[in-house]
């Protein structure tokens, strides 16, 4: 019978679907073919380094905030940040993208280093993570630190507490000390070493960077906790810091269209930043040969002209010097920390009596190191140093010269200006915020939405987190 054949077909179809619940294929179908579900420390570390460095030295945090407020650069045409009109979007992007980004990548580098019994890998991960945390805490004060980066633990809270900045500093000193001690045991780190984009796997270089970073942090708290600062400074110095520009912590970008410097990418689509008039005028007053490196000549007449900060009135744009091509080339470098800075820190320590050394000669060594870093000829350096205006005169001279040397590192220059008050910066004529240069970044609204109680506690602990509320170490 025809009908019974059809019935059999139907019965088979019924049976097939009836067992559909046990379809072995279902799980297989849901295997993600697009992305791996595992990664090694060697794959995560370069991503973390590039992401953190490009954020710290990129268009958002450096070019559009800290380098403007430290008056290294200025904005023309669209001057929102330069007059301190800050959108929440520019803040939240930076805050969240540090944590859910390089900090998490470094956290996994550390965990994988431990899992695979490669303590040096974990130690280098810790140094880069600490460098990133340090930039953050000097922008926001209290940040998530001791409870941070625990998201993969299903029992961990989705609303981690923020630590006081003092606690963060204590934690960072310990982290760097521990990492350096681990590396001091010698041995190798990443395999292949090319995964270390900064020092190519050189564990000794990483120790010097860890110690130099500790110097920077120790000096930062000099006004609020001189005793700790002094102790940490001396311990770090004794453990060995940068000894030449060859030791600098540098990420080099590449002229290959993809691994390009973030300022180069920015300038591909926009041209609205110049060098600050404050910087140009200072360099001109000192006949500083670095001017030709820091700035490009104007299109109008080939001279060097800065644009005033915080002014809504735009001069013709061909009479504004742009940021020097040295800093905006596709293959420009990001200098996380330089030998010059280490010498300035020592000069200041000597001036403060933390160490026994000749502050004046450390000061001239620092200027020399900076000049050499930017390729200035020895004759020009000598002429520069011979000027009475450049002569050492204590903290003010260190402050101004360090500010010049930190050109291109907005976050550090901005932090040091807040700590030392050098150079004396004045907000532009159209500045909002009662004409005051902000002394911190506000927290993003998204953190208030997602972690309100802990954030409120941190804000209360700091006595407010408005643009004019100073950080813990910013007591003067």
């Amino acid at each position, binding site marked *: 019978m025809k009908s019974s054949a059809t019935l059999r077909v139907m019965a088979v179809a019924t049976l097939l679907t009836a067992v559909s619940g046990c379809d072995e294929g279902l799980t297989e179908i849901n295997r993600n073919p697009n992305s791996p579900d595992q*990664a090694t420390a060697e794959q995560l570390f370069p*991503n973390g380094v590039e992401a953190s460095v490009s954020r710290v030295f990129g268009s958002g945090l450096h070019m559009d905030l800290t380098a403007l407020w430290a008056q290294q650069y200025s904005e023309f045409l669209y001057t929102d940040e330069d007059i301190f009109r800050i959108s929440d979007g520019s803040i939240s992007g930076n805050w969240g993208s540090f944590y859910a980004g390089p900090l998490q990548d470094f956290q996994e580098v550390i965990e994988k280093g431990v899992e695979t019994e490669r303590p040096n890998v974990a130690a280098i991960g810790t140094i880069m993570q600490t460098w990133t945390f340090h930039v953050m805490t000097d922008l926001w004060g209290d940040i998530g630190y001791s409870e941070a980066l625990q998201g993969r633990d299903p029992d961990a809270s989705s609303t981690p507490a923020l630590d006081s900045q003092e606690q963060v500093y204590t934690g960072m000193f310990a982290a760097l000390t521990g990492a350096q001690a681990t590396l001091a045991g010698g041995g190798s780190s990443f395999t292949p070493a090319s995964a270390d984009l900064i020092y190519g796997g050189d564990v000794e270089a990483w120790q010097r960077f860890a110690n130099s970073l500790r110097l920077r942090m120790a000096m930062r708290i000099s006004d609020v906790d001189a005793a700790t600062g002094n102790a940490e400074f001396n311990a770090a110095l004794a453990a060995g810091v940068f000894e030449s520009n060859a030791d600098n912590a540098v990420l080099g970008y590449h002229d290959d269209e993809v691994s390009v410097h973030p300022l180069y990418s920015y300038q591909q689509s926009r041209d609205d930043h110049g060098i600050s008039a404050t910087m140009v005028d200072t360099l001109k007053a000192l006949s500083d040969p670095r001017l030709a490196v820091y700035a490009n000549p104007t299109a109008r007449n080939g001279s060097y002209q800065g644009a005033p900060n915080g002014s809504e009135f735009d001069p013709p744009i061909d009479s504004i010097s742009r940021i020097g091509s040295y800093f905006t080339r596709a293959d420009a470098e990001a200098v996380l920390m330089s030998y010059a800075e280490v010498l300035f820190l020592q000069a200041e320590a000597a001036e403060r009596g933390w160490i026994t050394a000749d502050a004046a000669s450390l000061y001239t060594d620092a200027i020399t190191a900076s000049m050499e870093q930017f390729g200035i000829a020895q004759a020009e350096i000598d002429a520069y140093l011979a000027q009475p205006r450049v002569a050492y005169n204590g903290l003010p001279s260190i402050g101004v010269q360090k500010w010049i040397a930190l050109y291109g590192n907005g976050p550090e220059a901005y932090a040091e200006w807040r700590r030392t008050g050098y150079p004396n910066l004045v907000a532009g004529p159209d500045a909002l915020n009662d004409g005051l240069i902000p002394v911190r970044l506000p927290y993003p609204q998204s953190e208030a939405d997602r972690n309100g109680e802990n954030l409120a506690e941190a804000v209360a602990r700091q006595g407010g987190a408005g643009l004019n509320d100073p950080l813990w170490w910013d007591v003067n």
Partner: protein
Amino acid sequence: MSKRRWLFALLLTLVPVTASGQSTGTIQGTVVDATTQAPLSSVQVSVRNSALGTLTDDQGRFQIVNVPAGEHFVRAQLIGFGADEERVVVSAGSAATVTLALTQTAIEVEGLVVTALGIERAERSLTTSVEEVNAEDLTEAREPNLVTALTGKVAGVTITNSNTPGGSSRIVIRGANSLTGNNQPLFVIDGVPVSNAAGSGGTTGYNAIDYGNVIQDINPDDIESLSVLKGPNAAALYGSRAANGAILITTKNGRRASGTAINASTNVSFETPLKLPTYQNKYGQGAFGEYSYLDGRGNGVNDGTDESWGPRLDNGLMIPQFFSNGEAVPWVSHPDNVRNFFDTGRTVNTSASFATNSDNSNVRFSISRMDQEGMYPSFELERTNVALSGGSNLTDRLRTDVSVQYLQSDGANRPPQGYGEDNVMWQFLWFGRQVDTSLLEARQFNEDGTQFNWNSRWNNNPYWTALVNSNSDVRDRIIGSASLSFDVTPWLTAMVRSGTDWYQEERRREYAADTRGISGENGAFGETDIFRQETNTDFMLSGSWAELGDFSLNVDVGGNRRNNNYRNDGIYVEDLVVPGVYARSNAAVEPSLSDYRERKRVNSLFGIASIGYRDILFVDVTGRNDWSSTLPEDNNSYFYPSISSSLVFSDLIDVPGLSFGKLNAGWAQVGSDAAPYQLVDPYGADVPFGGVPRLSASNTLRNANLKPEQTEGWEIGTDLVFLGDRLGVQATYYSKSTTNQIIPLQISPITGFTSRYINAGKLSNEGVELSVDAVPVRLANGFEWDVTVNYTRNRDYVDELYGDLETMVLGSYYNVSVEARKGERYGAMYGRMYVRDPEGNIVVDSDGLPLNSSDNPVGLLGNYNPDWVGSINNRLSYKGLDLSFLFDTRQGGVIYSMTHRYGQRSGVLIETLEGRENSIDDGLIVEGVQQLEDGSYVPNTTVTDARSYHRGIGAITENSVFDASFVKLREMRLGYNVPRSLTQRWGVSGLRVALVGRNLALWSDVPHIDPETAFNASNVQGFEYSQMPSARSIGFNISVTP
């Protein structure tokens, strides 16, 4: 598929009749269209209160034998028509003849509608909310996007469209269910689910192109009926896809044809902008009243500025300009420079169909073509559809139905959208008001081959974007299905069916050398290839017992396997070796590549039992179990039940004036599974840095323990007809809530992640749908006035999120975020507000400008959902002449207009004359208060200059938020059915001509823009981003039946 109807017919004719011939007679006759008097085939004819019935043949004839002698009521029913019933007296041994005439009347309760799984049911037996849309309403005043065409035609449905030609249109039935997931209904064609994927981007992104939602590929001429299953109750049989309701489309397949039928129609319409921003024409480009062109890059006087704060126009000034080679030329206004940019659009639709129907088989072939040339210069969209469908009774008991459609959509130079220099409407905001766009149209190149433009710093010549750069997209799509059904016994039918919706799409964008915003010196190009397929295979066993004493019973059980496949491959070449050759082999740099693949499978078993009692009381029980690949292995099986019933109470009690009355109530539980790959955390590869490969941890934590979302809903409704058929009222109240939402919970990034997938949250909707159909005037001479009113009110509340979490940000653009905030309506918009004193006055600073900093309060600006939507359609008809006009409205809800915000900042909009009516030195006094040192407030008297005020105010987003309410004259048709007596002389049997118009008028308080705008197809709405002007279209339609 309408298995049920022919099954029913077969059943009736095959049931052996045992009654003796002596006491029975025959009923015979014809069924015709009451309007045209044309015979109607395949009409279901039945004898009331009996199991007797048949279908009409291709001449509209029928014969029912073995009818017991006595008085009977014969009923004729056909989908899309109101039923007709006639009294007949049958004498033993003789034949009674009757003619039944069916009308396409506004009010029908005895007609047939298509319900879930394609089951056709009489409206009186419906237990849930299903609404049919008349196919003719989709074809005559034609709208290229099928979703947009439904605007104002169905209660309970909210449609927002992007206004972009060929762009997206978003449809939501009874409000959003899912916090972050899909909220649009399932589309099903002839029983086979099809894709309505969003084309991507919408109007959101930087220079993004809105490729539209893909259901617009369907040719409305092929649609026989369109049913809207509103919400979970009606769609329960679709299980994990039922939460948002379903739209069922039945295509024509020739079974309705009387013998051989041929139809041809053509539709031509012309489009012009309905509304453009109102610009000022007193001041041209520049700043501080000064401007002089040197190179357009900022080296002249303010010539890099793309704002209009420059010198006074039409004041006798002579100034060097972009076209004058340094010569000072008259500085004069060009008030129509934006309007002149837009052409008159033209859309031509032509379609033809051939259908034939014989005793055992039916075939229909159709072909159609749409050619659209947009208002945007060089925009073109061409669509070609070829459809072939048919069926055949292979034996008395075995039948097959096959349908295949080939659809091609071919777009060129769609206008780029969003915030970016390629969006011309964006450019006309950042604009020099004096610019004569006709000069830019005349040429795009300088003599040295570089771009000729009014500004060389920020913008591309708008004609460069439209004519020199290009974009194109081609989609080839096949939707097909085949089924085989077998009558196992007279009461049992078995069916197997397989269907697929398959498409491949190629999108390209090409940028010429010297395009702003492109880093490649010699130009750049990008290409995306998309492949999407959904295949469904199912079987169904259908049993029907019409006569069980007073009861009838229908049972359908079945199973389904669904496979989804998706692939997206992209390439972008940032620079070329030689300009003008957009090929990989001409790449000057390493191309950047991307690819994405996605698969999904769902297995299902389902069933429905429908019990009827005396054709008065109906109860439906359904159940479906889904096994989804996207859920954890040991937790991937879910069951979804529903029960609903209806009572035709007017058959029990006699209410004066009430000719029909029905109550229905139902409860359903349905769900929604996860998207693929949400269970395991991935690592993402970034481009190798200097050759060093790298991976990064994802920002989102996946969840290995996900469960499906669950929607539970109930509804009660009534369907009443008064005064014969002069007044009909349909009302439904519904309530539903969705729990266990699969949401990427936004968590503190301090955790190392910005979001984590969890099951949480509760979103609930309640609402009212009301439809009133009335015939206020019906005269003996044939004049009739029909009115249809639809009203929809939905409230969508966020009851729970997760723990103490107060809000979830659905999306945030330009300082305004759209949020799901606990205790508030879904879609709340938050942004920066004015600082106000206790009396509510705006507080200004010492310069007289409103306080404007990050210390300003962030507050609720409104909600993007309307308070209610409604429509009124009027139709006047007299003999062959008819006139109809449809108004629809959205009331309530807000829109955040970037046109307003940036047009004010840049000084191009009319309101920026405030403070410079006569001269830029006028200044203005902001209405507000200043705070004194002692804390008290005094009225502001400080004069501020217009530029400072208008340029700064935008950061206070409250300033650009408007009540989005509007009323539109959506559609107007004036049609004439040429009398047969005339047409037969010309050798055709039917001819209809119509004048049609769409979007003819807009009433709204929102300045500059059409508030009806979809941001994209996502849940983030309420934003307007330099929208393309919506189109007012006027045209005509000719339909011929030879």
